């Protein structure tokens, strides 16, 4: 660990007094037994409910009859015992241990539909009940994650909470996923949240090792979702301030499973899934072709038309096997799991497989100290085919081909040329594109509770990932006759080192205080290296011996450090006020900006606990909480590790090396982008806790956005990255949960989420910058991020298309007024004149995102479905555009049939508005039916059989395969571009899970 240099002890010695609190003495402990049952309000036993002596290392869970027995060794005194169970309000009972012996406590728990009594840690600095929080926090439990049928963590988050939009950017089995909490909060950086798994800040880089944008994985795909016990999500700066400069996109904290004492539990699950193309798109089926290229000549010849989709797409299969063993004895608990996932894509020749293993050991050292150590190892491999977006790809070849060419290999072994990209059979049969990822994540957590109310947690996390991609295009490939090979490796190591302490005490009978403080040191190291060779020798699949070689290498290191102090004061356990300050710095900030301060304040008021409320509205609103939070957090993903420096470039002329100054000079004043967020909301339950409603409004102001600004050339340079942009987000989130039926045999829970957001960018020099989608997506002042600004139809005053004299649509022309607004102009014939005009023609940001989830259980049967809706967003459909022009689309068929004027498609090809489509969709994301068989054989506790479907159908008007994908993959600003992307498959899965 060379990056920690010894010395500067004095800086940390300040922590000593805090830690010296640890050296208080204790009085002698006595042995006691606490026992009883935990049941629901209707008397049903709760299995696996947690029983915990507050502030002590003593706890257990209930067995299958809801019984518990807890042996503790504690000094005489009065203690609190807490009973908690997912979906129920936790209860505390006072326990008088002035003498030894056995105590029996039976307890009935009330339902907690909003989980207000759930204990969370994210953004709080310590264990805190949700009711005390001034900000919204969303949580997910294991059952919701495992039940989703998703193969990665982010897929499982889809639709499960308000204010989250999860986009699978391609249906390729190795594709990446974008997660946005509330909205984008940057232009040039990433809007993906900060992910923490078991205290390790994990790498979720998008690793482009194939130079194929649509199959760029995020590294969170390495993590097996079946190991997850719980997920907590906070969505913006107001909640995330104590995470400092990395938190403005929100924080997703993941906790994996732990063992529990008692008999070892073995769980095994296996599944098989069948993937298929959900929808084939229209293509040209008219068996004719124009005899002449002259568009006024309408004579035709007969041809055969082919459906290339049949060749490239195929039904496929996958399997997923998972085994976990957990248990423990005395002071030691363990959990171990192994999994093997294998999934084929619906694009022929693509697959993804992942082998992973996890071990966690929890050890209680004594009554005030324990530690937990865990490690996770995963290896994943994919076979890929180029597809999507820029450059050649299977589906691009289809888009660019007039589908009257038989692509089959001829007798001499030659593939017919289809277009300026390779033949579709060549990709499938001769190309070799692969990705291999190795990942390990380890953590060690030491927890001390040296005195009543004080807990200290020391945590070290290590995350190492290596991704390697190889590509091979054989010599002799059509349109790529020289052959190409490429190998690229991205390695990343992340280390975090955190010390957190929380001290809870009652200042008076009515006022409680929780103080939390923490310090973190983080270090990242990244490297990228690529070798590309072309002009390959026959049979050589590597770059070795290639006629032309180019290389690229980049290495970087970065450190981040910070500390926070947070204080929560509770009044009568009804009103809670929290204030916090975080200071942090990073090696990527300029010297004058090394210390960034992020404050937050928040408050929550459980007004329903007041007597006046319960006497009046209490019969309707069983609980009612008002919350408000204000805070700041930063984003440093737009800062490169060396952007603050003026980095000279190496050159070589005539064998002598030299250095030249860069056109983009360093900025010694760089600082993180800063979000100031205010959120207010209410959480309420109605009708005896049958209905729960959470409403939140937020307003985010993001300042200091990092954009490249132009410099006077007389500075000697052209650009500098500066903190000049701004952005705002205003939005509303709602989540409604209802339990209309709760009987012993029949239970029905239904949850709806809704979120809407308005985004606006400002401060861009020169009004706008192009950010992808071939430059059509813009960050433009006064507009939402990523709007499409391009050419549009010339129209008549009544809105109909102004056609050319030949009857074809055409692009609007004219001039711009002094405000930059386009003003159409007409010539003497009433036809457009002037220069071709552009305007904002589409917005890829949805009007709203919503979901509806239903869970029904009847005895041993359960039935579940989830609809996801993303409504009111535009797609820049390059698929549609190419099918206008290259003859393989239905447009050409209509022209051949005489339904439209020949040349209409070619004209539309040149008018961007013609290929803007409404992408709104409602998808049946999940549907599942399962049957639980209890004690089928001796030695088996239960077996569950599940038949589920994912993405079975979509209600949308999109002309191409799938509106949900994105050409620029995980790009932050460039959304809504679709070109030759593999659609997300329809999946049917049969799974068996057995617990022993």
């Amino acid at each position, binding site marked *: 660990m060379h990056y*920690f*240099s*010894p*010395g*500067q*002890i004095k*800086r*940390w*010695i300040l*922590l000593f007094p805090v*830690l010296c609190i*640890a*050296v208080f*003495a*204790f009085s002698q402990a006595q042995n006691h037994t606490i026992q009883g049952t935990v049941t629901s309000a209707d008397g049903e036993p709760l299995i696996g409910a947690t029983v915990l002596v507050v502030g002590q290392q003593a706890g257990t869970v209930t067995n299958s009859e809801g019984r518990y027995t807890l042996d503790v060794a504690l000094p005489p005194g009065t203690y609190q015992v807490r009973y908690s169970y997912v979906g129920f309000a936790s209860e505390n009972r006072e326990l008088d241990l002035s003498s030894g012996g056995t105590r029996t406590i039976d307890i009935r728990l009330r339902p907690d539909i909003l989980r207000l009594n759930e204990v969370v840690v994210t953004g709080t600095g310590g264990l805190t009940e949700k009711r005390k929080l001034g900000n919204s926090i969303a949580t997910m439990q294991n059952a919701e994650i495992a039940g989703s049928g998703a193969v990665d963590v982010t897929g499982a988050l889809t639709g499960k909470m308000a204010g989250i939009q999860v986009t699978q950017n391609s249906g390729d089995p190795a594709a990446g996923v974008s997660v946005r909490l509330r909205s984008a909060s940057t232009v040039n950086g990433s809007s993906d949240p900060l992910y923490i798994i078991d205290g390790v800040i994990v790498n979720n880089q998008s690793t482009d090792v194939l130079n194929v944008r649509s199959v760029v994985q995020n590294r969170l795909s390495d993590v097996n979702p079946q190991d997850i016990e719980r997920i907590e999500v906070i969505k913006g700066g107001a909640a995330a301030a104590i995470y400092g400069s990395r938190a403005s996109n929100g924080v997703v904290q993941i906790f994996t499973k732990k063992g529990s004492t008692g008999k070892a539990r073995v769980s095994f699950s296996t599944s098989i899934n069948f993937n298929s193309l959900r929808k084939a798109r229209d293509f040209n089926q008219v068996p004719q072709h124009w005899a002449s290229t002259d568009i006024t000549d309408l004579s035709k010849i007969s041809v055969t038309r082919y459906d290339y989709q049949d060749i490239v797409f195929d039904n496929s299969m996958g399997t997923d096997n998972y085994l976990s063993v957990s248990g423990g004895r005395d002071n030691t608990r363990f959990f171990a799991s192994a999994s093997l996932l294998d999934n084929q894509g619906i694009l022929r020749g693509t697959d993804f497989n992942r082998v992973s293993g996890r071990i966690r050991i929890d050890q209680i050292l004594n009554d*005030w100290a324990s530690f937990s150590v865990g490690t996770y190892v995963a290896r994943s491999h994919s076979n890929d085919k180029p597809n999507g977006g820029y450059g050649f790809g299977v589906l691009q070849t289809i888009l660019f081909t007039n589908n009257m060419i038989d692509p089959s290999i001829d007798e001499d072994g030659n593939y017919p040329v289809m277009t300026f990209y390779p033949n579709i059979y060549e990709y499938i049969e001769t190309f070799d594109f692969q990705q291999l990822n190795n990942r390990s994540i380890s953590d060690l957590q*030491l927890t*001390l509770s*040296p005195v009543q109310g004080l807990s200290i947690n020391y945590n*070290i996390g290590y995350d190492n990932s290596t991704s390697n991609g190889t590509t091979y295009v054989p010599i002799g490939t059509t349109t790529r006759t020289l052959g190409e090979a490429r190998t690229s490796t991205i390695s990343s190591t992340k280390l975090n080192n955190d*010390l957190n302490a929380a001290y809870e005490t009652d200042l008076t009978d009515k006022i409680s205080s929780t103080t939390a403080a923490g*310090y973190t*040191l983080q*270090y990242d190291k990244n490297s990228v290296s690529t070798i590309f060779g072309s002009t390959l020798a026959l049979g050589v699949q590597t770059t070795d011996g290639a006629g032309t070689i180019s290389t690229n*290498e980049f*290495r*970087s290191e970065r*450190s981040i*450090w910070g500390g926070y102090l947070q204080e929560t004061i509770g009044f009568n356990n009804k009103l809670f006020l929290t204030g916090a300050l975080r200071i942090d710095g990073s*090696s990527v900030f300029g010297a004058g900006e*090394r210390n960034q301060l992020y404050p937050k304040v928040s408050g929550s008021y459980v007004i329903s606990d007041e007597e006046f409320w319960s006497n009046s509205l209490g019969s309707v609103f069983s609980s009612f909480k008002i919350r408000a939070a204000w805070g700041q957090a930063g984003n440093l993903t737009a800062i490169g*590790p*060396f952007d603050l*420096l*003026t*980095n*000279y470039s*190496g*050159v*070589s*002329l*005539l*064998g*002598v090396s*030299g*250095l*030249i*100054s860069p*056109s983009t*000079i*360093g900025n010694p004043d760089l600082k993180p982008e800063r979000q100031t967020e205010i959120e207010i909301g209410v959480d309420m339950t109605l009708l005896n806790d049958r209905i729960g409603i959470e409403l939140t409004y937020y307003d985010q102001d993001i300042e200091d956005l990092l954009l490249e600004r*132009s*410099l*006077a*050339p*007389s*500075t*000697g*340079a*052209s650009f500098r990255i500066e903190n000049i942009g701004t952005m705002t987000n205003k939005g509303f989130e709602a989540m409604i949960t209802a339990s209309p039926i709760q009987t012993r045999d029949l239970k029905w829970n239904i949850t709806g989420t809704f979120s809407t957001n308005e985004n606006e960018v400002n401060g861009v020099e020169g009004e706008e910058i192009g950010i992808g989608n071939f430059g059509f997506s813009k960050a433009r002042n006064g507009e939402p991020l990523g709007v499409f600004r391009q050419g549009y139809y010339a129209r008549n005053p009544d809105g109909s298309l102004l056609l050319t004299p030949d009857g074809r649509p055409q692009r609007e022309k004219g001039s711009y007024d002094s405000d930059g607004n386009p003003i159409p102009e007409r010539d003497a014939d009433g036809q457009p004149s002037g220069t071709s005009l552009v305007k904002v023609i589409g917005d890829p940001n949805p009007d709203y995102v919503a979901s509806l989830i239903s869970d029904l259980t009847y005895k041993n049967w359960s039935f579940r479905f989830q609809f996801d809706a993303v409504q009111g967003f535009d797609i820049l459909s390059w698929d549609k555009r190419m099918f206008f022009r290259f003859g393989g689309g239905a447009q050409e068929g209509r022209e051949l049939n005489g339904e439209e004027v020949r040349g209409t498609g070619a004209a539309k090809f040149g008018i961007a508005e013609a290929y803007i489509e409404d992408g709104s969709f409602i998808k049946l994301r999940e549907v599942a039916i399962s049957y639980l068989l209890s004690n089928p054989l001796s030695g088996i506790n239960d077996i569950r059989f599940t038949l589920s479907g994912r993405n079975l159908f979509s209600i949308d008007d999109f002309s191409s395969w799938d509106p949900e994908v994105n050409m620029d993959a995980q790009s932050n600003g460039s959304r809504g571009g679709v070109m030759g992307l593999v659609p997300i498959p329809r999946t049917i899965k049969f799974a068996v899970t057995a617990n022993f």
Partner: protein
Amino acid sequence: MKHLFHTKLAAAFIIVSLFATSCDTDFANPNNPTEDIIFSSKDGLFALSVGINQYFSTTALRQVIEAPGITTRELGVTNTFLNINDLARGGAELEGISGGITNPWVTLLRAKGMAESLIANVDNAGLSSSTRNSLLAYGNFYKAMCLGHLIQMFEQVPINNSPDGNATFSDRSTVLSECIALLSAARDAISGGVSAEFQANVLGPDRNLLNSVNAFLSRYHLMAGNYTESINSANAVLNTGDAPSMFSYDANNVNPVWNRVNPSASDLRPQTNFGLLGAYVPEAGDGRVDFYLGADAGVALADAGGQAISEMLGFFETQTSPIPIYLHGELLLNKAEAYARSGDLPNAVTELNKVRMKTDDPLGLNANLPAWGGNAGNAGEILEEIYKNRAIEMFLTGTRLEHSRRFHPDFDVPQAANTTNERNRNYYPYPTIERENNPNTPPDPTI
């Protein structure tokens, strides 16, 4: 009890010691060195020197030749790119936003900035006086070249770059004085020769720094009207035997003009007869025509003038053809012009005829014509013949706009776009990118 106390103390101590280290707060960039590394050692300054030449000869030189080359019809435009068409059309249509004039401005100022960094740091690395003087002369030479090329295109230019974006502009005479001062200091610094190490590791075998300095001194003295000094500086080169000094290229750093005019590039072609019309059309048998120009290559874009164009030969024929830093013929023409403008017509004609009758040019650029048959007593006629010879001899050296303006100051350049005049601008407007970011940017010239 004591035992527990000690355990807790030990736990606290372990945690504190884990944090009793600090992480590095600054990381060096292993991919790209920064100024502090470059400016503090001989090796760093040598590397910067190599970089200045690499950037100037491959990037800036293209703009130096291309922009005035299009404005004065040396080059015909064969592609629809806006930047080159803006230049071909000229007049008031050539605006500050155009890439055609922004590119030379940006690249020359960036090269000048590197030269200024070199000059500013020659005393910071503790070098021997010989090495220090070599570096200083080299920095001065490149800075003077950048300033000189800029002042040939723009009315005013910033003598010194300013990182704060408020560089002040100086007029032509001040800039020329600065060029002369820089080059004079360079000449004096290396009057005893450059250091052998500098020659071997930076200049290489193809560049003679002292001759190059004197050749440009001759040019700038002439432009400034210092005729005696111009002649003396030219003689300083001519008297040394005059081995050529060249910008050299390799497969990764190709001849930047070849890159634009070769048969597979569709951007620019040399105009037939060097774009000269009427009396300036080369005489039959002028060897320089076949030296520079090959077979007919069709015509330029109609919108850009539609002139006849030829294949490119000469110093731009191949990917790695070296480009001369200065021409032997320029020195003779400088002398001829200096004599003519100072009234010494016989000497002027003598030097002019050396150019016309040249058969032993060190680079093979031989007109091989008979002695001039014009009126040797008429200064105006002599100067016209000197202009014509400059236009031919110094084809694509980035100087024709300067020559056209100096010899034909009264030529009326129209405001309207024009694709065939001898020149379609006197000076270029200042690039918008400079104006928007530097409050000291002067008003644009009227034409």
